[in-house]
């Protein structure tokens, strides 16, 4: 019997061991590094909360945080409704609906490096398709330098990221729609409820679980956005499109301020934590039901 008790741990030994070395232990280490001044080579110097105090007065960090909030709002306000509309539209089983879906999903198979490159051509000021389009319909004033104007660059990056995010949200809703009982929907039709009412009172409440997951995942993703920013603008011009993840990377690996970089990561982690816990509670609730 004693052997039996050990068995699960034997199975878990290898995966848990690797996971501890590369994921769990580093999390704790980052906390420790955040209280130090360290260039990554010489000895670490303990400085207490100095890094965090400096963060408060660091304008570039403030800017990065603000941009993360823009990402969050943009992701939630755009990918949720659009993902839902795409899902509801393409959930109708007309011939060819699978092909339409595949084509919309396509960006999910692409690396952010490829997406970034493609979108920098889409948004290119002189020959890019967006500006060419605006000029051709006589809206010259809407043709903007999308990636070099500090005021709009972050929105351009969010647009590029949404190209991949919306299909993902659409998949979450398509899965949710499978759980909407056909009877409920049909009952609403028999009752004579109009289509919009049916949507608000029958379909939307049934999609609640999918909605919660979609919103949480969108927020978590928006708070850790990195690749698109790094590939397309490196956070520029003059940090105007910087996000926390990007600023952390620049501080730690370009300026060799590992301690300061770690403190940015810790703040980023702290902000995300609430949403991670929300997600975990969802998982736990599911556990209890089983």
């Amino acid at each position, binding site marked *: 019997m004693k052997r039996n008790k050990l068995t699960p741990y034997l199975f878990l030994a290898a995966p848990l061991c690797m996971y501890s070395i590369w994921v769990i232990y580093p999390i704790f*280490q980052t906390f420790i590094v955040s209280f130090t001044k360290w260039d990554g080579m010489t000895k670490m110097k303990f400085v207490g909360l100095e890094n965090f105090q400096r963060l408060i007065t660091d304008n570039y960090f403030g800017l990065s945080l603000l941009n993360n909030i823009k990402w969050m709002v943009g992701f939630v306000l755009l990918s949720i409704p659009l993902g839902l509309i795409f899902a509801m539209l393409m959930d109708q089983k007309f011939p060819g609906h699978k092909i339409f879906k595949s084509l919309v999903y396509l960006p999910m198979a692409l690396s952010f490096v*490829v997406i970034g490159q493609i979108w920098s051509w889409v948004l290119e000021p002189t020959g890019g398709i967006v500006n060419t389009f605006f000029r051709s319909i006589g809206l010259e004033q809407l043709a903007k330098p999308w990636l070099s104007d500090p005021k709009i660059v972050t929105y351009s990056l969010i647009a590029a990221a949404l190209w991949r995010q919306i299909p993902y949200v659409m998949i979450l809703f398509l899965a949710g729609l499978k759980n909407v009982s056909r009877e409920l929907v049909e009952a609403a039709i028999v009752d004579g409820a109009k289509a919009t009412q049916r949507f608000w009172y029958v379909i939307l409440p049934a999609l609640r679980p999918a909605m919660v997951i979609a919103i949480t995942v969108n927020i978590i993703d928006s708070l850790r956005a990195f690749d698109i920013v790094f590939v397309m603008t490196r956070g520029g011009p003059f940090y105007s499109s910087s996000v926390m993840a990007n600023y952390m*990377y620049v501080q730690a690996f370009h300026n060799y301020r590992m301690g300061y970089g770690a403190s940015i990561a810790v703040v980023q982690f702290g902000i995300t934590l609430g949403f991670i816990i929300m997600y975990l509670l969802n998982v736990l609730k599911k556990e209890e039901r089983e």
Partner: protein
Amino acid sequence: MKKISRAILFYTLSTLIVVIWLIPLMVAFFTAFKTMDEIFMLRNFWSVPKTWTTDNFKTAWVEGKMQRYFLNTFLVTCISVAVTLFLSSLGAFALAWYKFKLRTTILIIFVAGMLIPFQMLLIPVYRFSVVTGLYDSLFGVILFHIAFQIGFCTFFMRNFMVTIPTSLFEAAKIDGAKAFTIYSKIIMPLLKPAVAALSILEFTWIWNDYLWSLILLQSDAKKTVTIGLTALQGQWISSWNVIAAGALLAAIVPVTVFLIFQKYFIEGLTLGSVKG
């Protein structure tokens, strides 16, 4: 009549969405087949090439060393996916079938790990690889991918395993079958759908990884396609056609895998409900 108008609405809107969705890809596609003269003369990215050329792909593949980066990425991706799936299935087996003290805690730790911002890991993982001599080796990148993806894969497979009827497991136990035999002979064969879904997801994720190759690799000979593509952008700054060809080359493998195994990819995303 109602059905017809619904069909019209469906096809019109769907076509509109798909066209808008594919414009960026068309831009890359056309650019990749254009000659340098055309790029400089017209400076537009959306028009159909006047003369089609495949030279850009040759340039990116040979001079741009995409050939080499391809091989590196292929190696990293295949090994990482295979080992991750094996180790995760072991962990998932323990978490699905045995009741023990730390079960829920371990499960939560695995789920939480895939949600944290990657920036929490960057500095220690980089340091660790420098200290252990794993820095700038494909082996180091592979080890990291395996370790990091174990969280998601264990969670995913465990969720799949708990749907297998307990009676199967109990019957085998009464027969006196050893735990590992139960795992390999009874449970694993039933796990094929989960393994298929995970392989496709993990393949695309690891193939498309950028950040970890950026952090853990340095020399040109070790680069993966995503890093190679950014190197290409630096080297062929104004040769947009060559860069576009490189981008298409970097995309061709995950896109093909995705299109062929789309069913599993979608199932994986739906069941996993979280993205790496």
